[in-house]
């Protein structure tokens, strides 16, 4: 594993994080502990290791100390769409939000289908020295959907998975071959389950709101048909696959059943799907234009239940920053997506407040859950693990204001929402990359 280094100057410094509630879901740890970091790694819990000298001490009394957040899907728009955002702007936003590892989907320009683009992303993120950025390689060349990408080369270059992002595949045969070929190199395939024919140019959930507003709908079956077809091929090929951004309760149940039957498939959900529904689209507000679309309250509740049960292994941001113009159009003509890095932890903590799941379980979906899907040794405070740490004040009230966003994209429907819980410190490889102003 050629993990990109997120800057290592100062990695040898000892850091003591004292007096906090340490929650490390990977190891079942939840309690008051002092945490000692040394040489960029987690060195000890409670007692400093022999010869430890703290160059920096973080007073975490009243705070939660957890592994840095691992985000399975964040578009940084670089290369190719720098008018929307850059790796520098988005990794800065990420670390302020406690996110230390980001996966970048392959729909950049050029597409991530050659080692050169992977290298470019690695170099740019290394220069920024904030969060770690991993590339997800293209499943097909140019995301064209018909010719396999050079997956072995992409893996060697550092891609953690392969995916066709939201671009359609030309058919079931290419999906079968892609799963088989990826399995040859032990690469996980990220699938966005959406049948392109059933999607049929839709822009909202096909339900009562689409009926009332006369907006072209995307039926539930666009997702469930794709999940069913994919599951058949996953079972036959034995490939390792992961469903991205499930949006329907029925698809969650299908994944749960498949896992019960022994198919080793994983799935995630993005945070906004756990709060917003089709009714939010009622005012034609393009900020609610997302793909997959916001669905019914029944779907939202089914996603929440799937998250609580663990059928959904991870919550991700599905961060899609846009320039203001991308949302200044009639609803169907707006670009889908939400600038979501800065609300990933706050929304997940809100689930805890609403009793959907407890804090350690919620943090598991942000840390070890996604890290396991990626097969990366992050998202844990195990001794010897990379010292990627997030410290947050779970009682701190704040409001999301546009002027205070660090992401270049201000396209979020959560502006003005009140949240409880805010990050005070973020460390990547033992290095303090963010500290909230006192």
């Amino acid at each position, binding site marked *: 594993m050629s993990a990109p280094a997120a800057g290592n100057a100062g990695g040898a410094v000892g850091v003591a994080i004292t007096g906090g509630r340490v929650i490390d879901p990977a190891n079942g740890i939840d309690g008051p502990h002092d945490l000692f970091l040394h040489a960029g790694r987690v060195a000890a819990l409670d007692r400093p290791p022999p010869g430890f000298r703290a160059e920096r001490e973080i007073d975490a009394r009243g705070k939660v100390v957890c592994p840095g957040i691992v985000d399975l899907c964040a578009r940084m728009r670089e290369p190719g769409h720098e008018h929307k955002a850059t790796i520098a702007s988005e990794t800065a936003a990420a670390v302020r939000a406690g996110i230390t590892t980001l996966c970048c989907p392959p729909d950049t320009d050029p597409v991530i289908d050659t080692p050169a683009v992977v290298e470019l992303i690695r170099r740019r993120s290394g220069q920024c020295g904030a969060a770690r950025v991993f590339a997800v390689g293209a499943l097909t060349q140019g995301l064209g959907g018909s010719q396999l990408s050079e997956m072995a080369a992409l893996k060697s270059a550092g891609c953690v998975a392969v995916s066709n992002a939201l671009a359609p595949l030309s058919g079931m045969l290419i999906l079968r071959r892609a799963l088989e070929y990826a399995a040859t190199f032990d690469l996980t395939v990220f699938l966005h389950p959406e049948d392109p024919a059933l999607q049929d140019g839709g822009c909202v959930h096909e*339900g*009562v709101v689409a*009926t*009332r*507003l*006369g907006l072209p709908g995307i039926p539930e079956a666009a997702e469930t048909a794709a999940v069913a077809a994919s599951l058949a091929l996953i079972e036959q090929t034995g490939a390792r696959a992961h469903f991205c951004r499930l949006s329907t309760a029925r698809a969650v149940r299908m994944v749960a059943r498949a896992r019960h039957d022994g198919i080793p498939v994983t799935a995630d959900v993005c945070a906004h799907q756990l709060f917003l529904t089709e009714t939010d689209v009622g005012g034609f507000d393009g900020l609610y234009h997302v793909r997959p679309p916001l669905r019914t309250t029944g779907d939202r509740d089914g996603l929440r239940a799937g998250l609580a049960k663990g059928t959904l292994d991870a919550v991700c941001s599905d961060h899609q920053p846009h320039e203001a113009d991308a949302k200044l*159009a*009639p609803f*169907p*003509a707006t670009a889908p997506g939400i600038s979501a890095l800065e609300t990933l932890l706050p929304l997940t903590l809100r689930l805890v407040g609403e009793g959907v799941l407890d804090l350690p379980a919620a943090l598991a979906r942000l840390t070890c859950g996604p890290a396991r899907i990626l097969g990366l040794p992050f998202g844990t405070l195990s001794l010897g693990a990379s010292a990627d740490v997030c410290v947050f004040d779970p009682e701190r009230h704040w409001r999301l204001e546009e002027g205070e966003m660090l992401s270049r994209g201000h396209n979020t429907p959560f502006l003005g929402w009140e949240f409880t819980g805010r990050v005070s410190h973020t460390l990547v490889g033992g290095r303090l990359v963010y500290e909230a102003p006192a």
Partner: protein
Amino acid sequence: MNRADLQVDGDGRLRHFLTVEGLHRDLLVEILDTAESFLGVVEQSVKKVPLLRGKTIVNLFFEASTRTRTTFELAAKRLSADVLNIHVDASATIKGETLLDTLRNLEAMHCDMFVVRHADSGTAHFFAQHAAPHVSVINAGDGRHAHPTQALLDMLTIRRHKGDFGRLRVVIVGDILHSRVARSQIHALNILGAGEVRVVAPRTLLPVQAHTLGVHVFHDLEAGIRDADVIIMLRLQRERMRGALLPSAHEYFRLYGLTAQRLGLAHPDAIVMHPGPINRGVEMDSQVADGAHSVILEQVHYGIAVRMAVMSLAMRRRLPGAEVREQEAG
């Protein structure tokens, strides 16, 4: 922002006319009454009133239309407004001008009202949200969403023939799924208190959970038009017959075409309406279209009066003397 709030000002007066949904019954009745008063103007030898003299109205059509654009133009001219017709085809988009740029440029020319038609649902709302405070936006059809002036001219037609809405059974037949006209008609009929609103269509031409619009759903035409007082036939676009929605025009007419024989199932005084243009032999046969029950040409006639009413009401708050009259009234 609530969509209904966007259309009316703090005193409940019309500011923009974007959708029938959410409007108060009294406002719809006021529009219909005002339209009635304009019917006389249209029949005079000098067909003009000076209500909007000095105002500039822009017909901004991003979709081809002859009938709607013409009646809006005539309505504006009969109110003595200056009218600018702009048909924006793909070329402006290719040049990279956004809708917002188009709006800003026309506002800079001191236009007072925009009559907008666009293929995307929500376009009129988008214009209204971004328009300068002095500008009114009238929706002349947005995607599948709304066509409120068409719905109100249909309501005027029904009212002039049938009087009270309370006892009426109104049936809308055809492509409900893609029809902005049907959506606006259904809202208008329910707000005006129609006794029963029915829709008749095969499932491929119905939106999901169509009953949530406030209608009874039928798939069989003969059951659906039984004892109907008003039958509204929707236009079936040719392209709907080529995809997976319908097998053929032939089968559609056989199942859903209005014939004299089927019309016999409706109330003996039933009226037959169609927003036009008619596909004869697809939605209805010529015998019905030109028959005694048909009020299709009246609809066109009322269209001008209704558009005059909507334009003058939306501009009322900005006409000279409006403040004075209000103070006197208050």
